[in-house]
């Protein structure tokens, strides 16, 4: 119990600042400093959120479905790529620079191309999310694999361990921390990736909803959906953190020791 207290006091300034910001925003709107149709007040946004709750929920489900499929495939692909690249050094040297290069191409730039190639269905959206999530996971794993202690590898070799056993007992568990750091970034990217690809065409999802309310100049709904998207991203990141805690119970022990 006593451990919880410092974390709350640590977050207190941020909470107060956040509340102050919302208050200020409400004040600006209530005093009519900015025309109401351009900047809805927090109360307006909340109201819009409530009225649109069913629509938002339905669209959020579509976006989440795309995000999850894309993230799952991206992570799977990342695992395969990182493992293969780590065990075949030539492949690592050949592919790694290309991977980094592909990351300089912005998502927004390839999304229209994907729509032209694959239409308005699920495929272009999944592909875009896979492309964006695959990279942080692969790089995280590769760095983790490379950081394996050569002495620990030697210890296992001295016990007669083969390549696969060294991977399973040393490299993979040693890379978990970096893997989860990569996954956290990927989780944040995947929702944004889904929304961007929905902007360019689709039959549902928060991105489609967004373009619709934009055309109607419904600023309050616009704000509502923006907040929803960041909430979903935050939620996914929290989920990754939870998974990390469950998969790496020894970290909690280390944290306690440091306090």
């Amino acid at each position, binding site marked *: 119990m006593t451990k919880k207290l410092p974390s709350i006091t640590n977050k207190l300034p941020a909470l107060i600042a956040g509340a102050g910001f919302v208050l200020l925003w409400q004040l600006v709107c209530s005093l009519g400093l900015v025309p109401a149709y351009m900047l809805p007040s927090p109360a307006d946004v909340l109201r819009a959120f409530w009225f649109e709750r069913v629509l938002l929920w339905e669209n959020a489900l579509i976006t989440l479905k795309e995000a999850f499929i894309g993230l799952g495939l991206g992570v799977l692909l990342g695992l395969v790529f990182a493992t293969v690249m780590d065990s075949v050094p030539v492949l690592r040297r050949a592919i790694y620079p290309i991977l980094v290069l592909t990351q300089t191409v912005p998502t927004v730039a390839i999304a229209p191309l994907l729509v032209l190639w694959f239409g308005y269905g699920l495929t272009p959206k999944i592909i875009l999310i896979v492309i964006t999530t695959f990279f942080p996971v692969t790089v995280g794993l590769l760095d983790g694999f490379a950081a394996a*202690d050569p*002495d*620990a590898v*030697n*210890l*296992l*070799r*001295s*016990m*007669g*361990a083969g390549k696969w*056993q060294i991977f399973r*007992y*040393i490299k993979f*568990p*040693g890379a*978990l921390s970096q893997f989860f750091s990569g996954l956290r970034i990927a989780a944040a990217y995947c929702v944004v990736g889904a929304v961007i690809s929905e902007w360019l065409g689709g039959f549902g999802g928060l991105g489609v909803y967004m373009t619709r309310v934009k055309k109607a100049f419904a600023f309050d709904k616009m704000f509502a959906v923006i907040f929803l998207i960041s909430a979903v991203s935050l939620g996914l990141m929290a989920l990754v953190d939870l998974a990390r805690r469950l998969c*790496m119970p*020894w970290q909690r*022990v*280390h944290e306690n*020791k440091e306090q």
Partner: protein
Amino acid sequence: MGILEVRGVSKSFDGRPILDRIDLTLNQGELVCLLGVSGGGKSTLFNIISGLLTPDSGQVLLDGHDVTGCPGHVSYMLQKDLLLPYRTVQDNVILPLLLQGIPRSEALKTAHSLFDAFGLDGTQRLYPTQLSGGMRQRAALLRTYLFSRKVVLLDEPFSALDALTKSAMHRWYLDVMDRMPVSTLFITHDVDEAILLSDRICLLSGTPGRITHQISVPYPRPRPDDFKLSQGFLACKKQILSLL
């Protein structure tokens, strides 16, 4: 013939000779110490005996079989304890059994009775960071022991410990050796430790390293607590210091 025979092993790194025609025999149940200055090639010799490195020339025979350059035959505790931080103590020590394909539950059963003998009872489910230095070392020793009881190589197993813990560990290890017949080859910089623990001391010196002298310590083990103050101990120490 000894259980472990090193015959004419030489090794150089990047053209720099480190070991020169090393001959070494370890007999069944014997505790032999390799004493030498830092950087003299002691760990390199262990890496060769364990099969992690292949010598430029020479052979390593275990029970008469050539195991040169083949890892997986002798127990080797490297210079660091190398307990894996993400595995509990029990999952660390059973690692050699898991690698041999023994199911976890069975491996845990095998290890269970030894936790007490190694003074580790109650630490099974802890993580290595939760252990003291002496306990970590004992856990690493238990893992080494579980791999094979035939030949054990220990690279400075006690050097990272403070003096008090160290002498407690010495007493404890001699006691273990007494109850569990293993043949041990171990490395140290510490002359006192060498005399206290071993049946025989091999001095590795010079560049490239050679075994220049072998000194036997003809006192029965386990040795009494005041052995360090005895005439025999002091005579031995004097002899070694004059040779170093």
